[in-house]
Each structure stands twice: as C-alpha cells, then as structure tokens.
C-alpha cells in the first residue's frame, strides 16, 4: 500500500507542479463538457489545425471586428483612450490632434490567421485627453527603463504639443 501511496503522491505532486489549480479545474471541466463531442473529433481537429495557438490571456479573448472595444486584437499592449472612440480610427488621429513621431511597440496575435504582428502604438497629441474608451492592456509591456515597450510614457515626444489626446495602433508588419 505504501508503494501505491508513493506513486499516487508523486503523480499528484508532479501534476500540481506542472499546472495551476485553476488551470487543472478548467481542463478537467473542459474534458467533462467535451465528452459528448468525441464523435465529432475529426471535424474539430481539422478546424483546430487552422486555429491560432493562444499566446496570452488577451489573445484568447481577442476579436478582429470591433476596433471600438478594448479586446480588439491590435490593442494587446495599448494603454489610454482609443482614438476609434474619439473621432479617429485604429491608425487615424481625430481632427484637432496630430500623430506623434515616436511610439512604443507591441507584438499581437491576429485571432484569425494566428500570426504575430508588430504594432506601433502612436499617441495623438495636441488636444485634451479624449476621455472615452479607456483600455489598459499589458501584453509584453515593460517598465520605463526599457522604454520601447512601455505604455505609461506620454509618447508625444517630438510632437508639436505634449498634450495627450488618444492612442492609435498602426500595423508595422509580421513579427516572425
């Protein structure tokens, strides 16, 4: 019996080390829910091969339809007011403001093609803070001492005005 106890304990400890409690519960729950779908597995597997591999908690719930929402896929590291809600667009500054020549950089996963893209987060400057659609996403966001990845800096450096209005998200290209 002691031998069986040891095996059980080692298995449990290894499981606990490898996955968190919440992760375990979610996987266990998912397995229960998935049981009735087993007959559909080949179809599901075919779709799964096209699906992106999840890169972060954000990318798991990201969407590519509505740039007025914080979970729009390109906003994975944005911090500020969305220009899409302020009279501008995903990469467009609202009238009355101007894009800053400097920016911080993010790497976001497109939910449909699963590819990772480099994104330049460019603040629009010169008008008062927009005040609409505040988002705070932090994928791969780094402190000020690594400024290229920091989204707390007022990135109006080099603009004609340091007044922050809103933030845009400009595609730079594939990260891979």
């Amino acid at each position, binding site marked *: 019996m002691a031998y069986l106890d040891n095996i059980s304990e080692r298995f449990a400890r290894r499981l*606990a*080390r490898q*996955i*968190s409690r*919440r*992760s375990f519960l979610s996987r266990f729950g998912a397995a229960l829910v998935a049981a009735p779908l087993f007959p559909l597995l080949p179809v599901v597997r075919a779709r799964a091969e096209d699906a992106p591999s*999840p*890169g*972060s*908690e*954000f990318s*798991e719930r990201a969407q590519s339809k509505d740039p007025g929402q914080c979970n729009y896929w390109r906003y994975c590291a944005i911090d500020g007011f969305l220009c899409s809600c302020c009279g501008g667009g995903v990469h467009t500054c609202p009238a009355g403001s101007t894009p800053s020549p*400097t920016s911080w950089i993010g790497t976001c996963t497109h939910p449909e093609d699963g590819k990772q893209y480099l994104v330049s987060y460019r603040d629009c400057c*010169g*008008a*008062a*803070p927009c005040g609409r659609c505040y988002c*705070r996403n*932090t*994928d*791969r*966001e*780094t*402190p*000020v*001492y*690594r*400024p290229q*990845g*920091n989204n*707390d*800096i*007022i990135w109006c*450096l080099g603009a*004609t*005005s*340091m*007044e*922050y209005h809103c933030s845009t998200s400009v595609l730079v290209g594939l990260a891979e």
Partner: protein
Amino acid sequence: MRPHPASACCRYVTSWQGGSHRTAQIGRKVVALWWLWAGWTAALAANPASQGSPEPAILETETSDVAVLPPPGPHRVLVGSSIETGGVRVIDGDSGTRQGEIFTSAGANFAIDPNNSYYYVAETYWSRGNRGKRDDLLSIYDDQLKLVAEVTLPGRLISLPKSPTLAVSGDGRWAYVYNLQPAASVAVVDLSVRKLATVAEIPGCGMVYAWKSAGFSSLCADGTAATVIRRGDKYTVSHSERFFDAELDPVFEESLVDRSAEHAFFISYTGIVYEAQLGEHFRILKEWSLQQAARLAPATTSALEYTWRPGGYHFAAYHKASGRLFVLMHVGTHWSHKQSGTEIWVFDTQRQQRIKRLAIPAPSDAITVSQDAEPLLYVLTSRDAGEAENQLAILNAQTGEVLRTVRGVSGSFAAVKGF
C-alpha cells in the same frame, strides 16, 4: 388778569376738538394705544427672541486666514500625482482628515524630505496651455505648504506618475529628476543651495533609486543595475552583472529602497525578490520567490498560467523596523502585472516567509505603510473599484483591520516620510 398762555392754548385745543372734553380724551387714548401697538409689533418683528431676554452680543467681524499645519506625526500620509492637473493631499491617518494640499501640474511627481521639513514637486508647464514655452521645475514647499523656491530643470519624463522619477537622497541633500527626451539622463539638484548641480547621462537605463548620500542606482534594459557615483562635479556610471531579464521578467519600477540603509527590494513580474545592497559596490544579497515564501510553486513566465502574482502600480511597501514587506497580489497570468491587487500579502523578509494575508475593502493599485511601532497601512482603491473608486482605506498594518476610509482621494501613489 392776564391769561396763562397754556390755559389759552388748552382752551383753544379743547375748543378745536369739537368742544367735547370726553371725546378729546378718547381720541388721545386711541392714538396712544396705536403707537404702543405699532412699537411693540415693530420690536417683535425686529427680534422676536429678545422678548424677556437680555440684548445679544453683536458678532465679531472676521478676517481671512490660513490654517496652520500641525507638526507631522508618524501617521501623516501624502496622496497624489495624476496624469491630469491636480494636487497632493496631506492626510492625517489617525483621524482620516485632510489637512492641506499642494497644487501640481498634470503628470507631476512629488517626494518628501527625510525630515518632513520640505515637500518637492517635479512638474511641467507650458506658457500657452498645450503649447508655447515649456517650463520644467522642481518646486519646493515648506512644512506649511508654502512655495519657497523653484529650480528650473533641463527637462523631465512625463508619464503616468511613478515615484522613482523623483528621488531625494537619504540625507536630504540631493534631489534627482529622471528625464527621457529620448536620451536617458538625471538632473541632479543640490538642495542645500536649491540649484541644478549637473546632469548625469545614464544611457540604456532609467529611474532613480537614491542612496543615503551622493549617488544613486538605476535599472537598465540589459537586466543590470547602473551605479552612478558622484566624483567632484561629475557622475560616473558603471554596471552590475545582469541579474534579471528585462524583456521577459522585468523588475517593477516601483521597487522599494530604504535610502538610509541603501537596501533595495527589486521585485520581478513573476514575484522574484532581488534584495540588493546599493552604493558604490552594488551586489545582490538574496533572491527569493514571493510564491515559494507562501508555500506555493514559483510563478513562471507562461502566459497562460494562472497563479498569485504581484501587481498594480505602487504595489509594495516595506516596514523597516519589523522587516515586513507588504505586496498587492492578484490571481492572473504573466503580463497581468498592472492588474489591481485583491489581497495584501505580508512577508517576513528575514525568514522569507509569508506571515499573513490581508483582505482589502476594494481592489487596489497603490499602498504604503507608516514607519512607527504601531504602523498604519494605506490602501488606495483602483479605478476598477467601482463605487469604491478614489478612496483611501486606512488599516491596522498588524491586524489588517480597516480603521477608517477617506473618500474623494485619488492619486498614483501614497507616500510617508522615509518611503
């Protein structure tokens, strides 16, 4: 006999009142009663309360004045700094009352003199609001919150306020203001003469972690710490060995420094605590995990691993005398480092063990703790706190009991003397 004039008068009057003496008497009584009634009514209307009581004293005239700030006790806390124009509020932790306020520009930062004698604000103004001539300043306020000096700065970083962008040396002599335009540098102000002393270039690094006297440390994008030493009028920069991964598991900017002991707690996103000795000879003293100290598996950089992690902005506090470290913790994945804390974990840094979990009234991004023998823990609620937003909860730091809540207080961080 010559008639008496009065008799003539009276006779004439009597005669004028119609010749009837009785009618005249009645008329006089009616007039007298009317005057009596009119006077009584007027008196009542003027002061109904005075009937039967002595005449009240007239209120003294007043002049405008300014409250005198009481001497700072150990439980004074300052809360402020915002991305928008605002102020730094002085609050008495024992009563929860607001005692005064310092005006600050948008994106300003503040610091407390080690003796609580002065308060410093690093701030920026433009001559025409959002444009015009830029003016970067270190504004110096005395212990009555009166502006006593302004030191012009060559520039400063404007960001969501972070406490290590302005630091004062442990002896109160030097103030350091971090700048990024976009080259990284630190403006050094000699507070003894209230003048800019020099500008120290710190390429590839950022933030200021002040020492007791001349010199400071910074953190760098290559995972090292910069040691910046004063040599005459100049500062020299050297780097430590690489001790953290700035890209995958950076240490928080709001890591803690006991300036008088030059002892730092650099804490990484995954919860690794790098205890470091600052000064001319930087060295890592200890390295331990917050999660392991709580008998959990250490957190990893896996983006899908949910576990307890440190997070928020001004996310930690240190009580020097007891060696206790307070950290805002939440359950999340890697890169959830700005998620508001839902609990405060208390660690014994000598034994590297978690000794308590404190519940907090609402999610929080910023905490600090007083440094006396009966410490108070100050907890600022986060912008995600719903109705509890903009509140300062004051807790007994030893038991976690919520003693009082101050409403209408917002800011990026709270600060006490020493931290």
